[in-house]
């Protein structure tokens, strides 16, 4: 079945609403300004209007209510919208939801899902372009899933809504919402917490997540076509749980790792991945672990300026080439 990313999410929500009466939605925009997103979610929201709670522009309050609803036995899905708006809700997201189960001595589960649309969306400028996964990664107690494909968008959302008993930040990316793939809904899903080898290769490992996955695959195609270099591409899928083993095993094979990351470079998500490899794959590394990330500046509006900062397939490919030319001094 061919599905785009937005359709896959909407289908997961629909099936979850059908399967469990305790699932309901707070807010109902989900896919922001994307036409595909609106097309996918509008009928869903119409069909289940009694299961949708209207949401004022009160991110902090809404995030707390999702937590509270989870405490009273429901499984709410809150649409926070653009990931930047999560900052308004940070006190609840980073200091309430993730602590409750632990603080209760393991008695109180919090099955709430927070929908976030992350990323440099194009003309979002400084305040609407945040990638918040590195920050949230430093919050123990919060699950962090970042599907890169329609298949994962579907399976991970169903898992969060129907199976997980812990708070989950479900992070989609503005630039993925229209991506269309063949999805086999019946196929057993790769477990949450397992990374996927999206492309096999022998020459270097590209450890990607979210929108970096299709860009890494494009870079890998180019490296193969133009330089005969076979890159292995890993889709991390979730940053918490974090599948360190799959990364390390791949680097044990290839000896080189490149980490494209849409976060700002310093203290971005890529830092954890690089630090992990630097330690656990030390003996296998033939070259230093490189990161290609968004520079440490706010995102500017002008398309000319914004595109200077984007981590593109070209930048990934050229960094890979530089790494392959590395000579230990």
């Amino acid at each position: 079945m061919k599905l785009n990313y937005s359709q896959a999410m909407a289908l997961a929500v629909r099936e979850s609403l059908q399967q469990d009466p305790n699932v309901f939605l707070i807010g109902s925009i989900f896919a922001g300004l994307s036409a595909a997103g609106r097309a996918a979610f509008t009928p869903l929201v119409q069909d289940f209007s009694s299961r949708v709670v209207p949401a004022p522009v009160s991110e902090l309050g809404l995030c707390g209510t999702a937590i509270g609803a989870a405490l009273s036995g429901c499984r709410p899905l809150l649409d926070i919208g653009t990931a930047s708006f999560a900052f308004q809700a940070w006190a609840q997201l980073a200091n309430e939801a993730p602590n409750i189960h632990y603080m209760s001595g393991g008695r109180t589960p919090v099955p709430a899902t927070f929908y976030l649309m992350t990323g440099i969306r194009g003309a979002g400028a400084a305040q609407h372009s945040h990638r918040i996964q590195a920050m949230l990664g430093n919050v123990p107690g919060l699950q962090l899933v970042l599907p890169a494909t329609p298949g994962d968008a579907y399976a991970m959302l169903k898992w969060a809504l129907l199976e997980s008993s812990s708070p989950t930040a479900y992070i989609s990316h503005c630039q993925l919402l229209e991506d269309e793939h063949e999805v086999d809904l019946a196929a057993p899903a790769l477990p949450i917490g397992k990374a996927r080898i999206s492309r096999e290769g022998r020459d270097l490992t590209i450890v990607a997540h979210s929108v970096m996955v299709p860009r890494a695959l494009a870079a890998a195609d180019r490296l193969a076509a133009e330089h005969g270099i076979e890159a292995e591409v890993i889709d991390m899928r979730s940053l918490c749980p974090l599948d360190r083993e799959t990364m390390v095993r791949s680097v044990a094979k290839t000896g080189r790792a490149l980490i494209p990351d849409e976060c700002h470079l310093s203290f971005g998500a890529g830092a954890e991945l690089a630090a992990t490899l630097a330690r656990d794959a030390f003996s296998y590394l033939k070259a230093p672990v490189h990161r290609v990330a968004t520079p440490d500046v706010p995102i500017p509006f002008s398309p000319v300026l914004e595109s200077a900062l984007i981590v593109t397939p070209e930048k990934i490919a050229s960094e890979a080439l530089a790494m392959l030319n590395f000579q230990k001094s």
Partner: protein
Amino acid sequence: MEDPVKHQKRLENMLRIRRFEEQVVRLSKAGGFPGHYHVYIGQEATAVTVCEQLEPHDMIFTTWRNHGHLLARGASPGRMLAEILGRATGLCRGKSGTLHLADKEIGMPATSAMVGGALPIATGAALGLKHRRSPGIVVAFFGDAALDEGAFYEAVNLAGLWKVPILYVCENNSIPPQKRRRGQFPSSSLNAAQLIDVPRALQIPSEVVDGADVDALCGCFRKLIAEVRTSASARFVEVRCTRWPGNVPLWPELPGGEWNLEWAFGAKPEPQDLAAWAEKSDPLLNYLRGLLEAGTLDRDIAFAVDARVRNEIADAVHFAESSPWPDPAEATRGTFAAERRT
């Protein structure tokens, strides 16, 4: 309500909180547990009269000043104290401490120590109960400083918009502003003429009640909780308490030592500010004096109730102090809940 048994029970419930908190102060001073903490002395009547009106499926949310709410709702004093001392037998395995005491079994699943933190959560719990068509309602207890926080405002607005069954109980125990000294936690720094002006602006029916007057509290909560139940919508109440002198310093004290039942029979406590408070503002003494005057209670029964409570709390202290420390390995367990099987 003239049933003496009911009055004795209520007295006992209030005394349990007072005697418990005294032991908390004593244990802290004796080095029994580290860190900052807050006691509920002087506010007991609020928790007790609210909880009298609740049903098992109702939920409660509270703050750092939570001991009284848990006790009034029926939590085990021993397991609470064990938690405050950080022991393995604590309600939360030693992980919450005094600041986050919670007990899911009695409908208190999570306690936030952030000012205003629990208010959106409590509102969401009421939304969840409504979604599940549960007969339950939610009560949220919080301090006056919560009204400084945007979280309060957003939560109350959402409750109004969504029509969810919740009672907001603001326990205003602030030092009158003219008495506030620098370095103390600020509170009641709201520019409203009175706290209830804010929820009223959001069309939440709101009342003020005297936290030292048990009869007034009973009447107020009986009415408001019935309204919340039948209308399935929100109510707000400001309970005005005069801060107990032991709660004025940054760290709680026991001025005048343990509370003395003789104060209900004419004895005068020292120091002066405690005497003034005992004269007018202590809900427990006010209640006792009323019962004695009305002949609903006599001296012997009062002392018997106190003795029973003291024994109970002594047992709780013993249980807590003789409880084992948690296994250090427990520190890294329990971050995530086990997944559901679907």
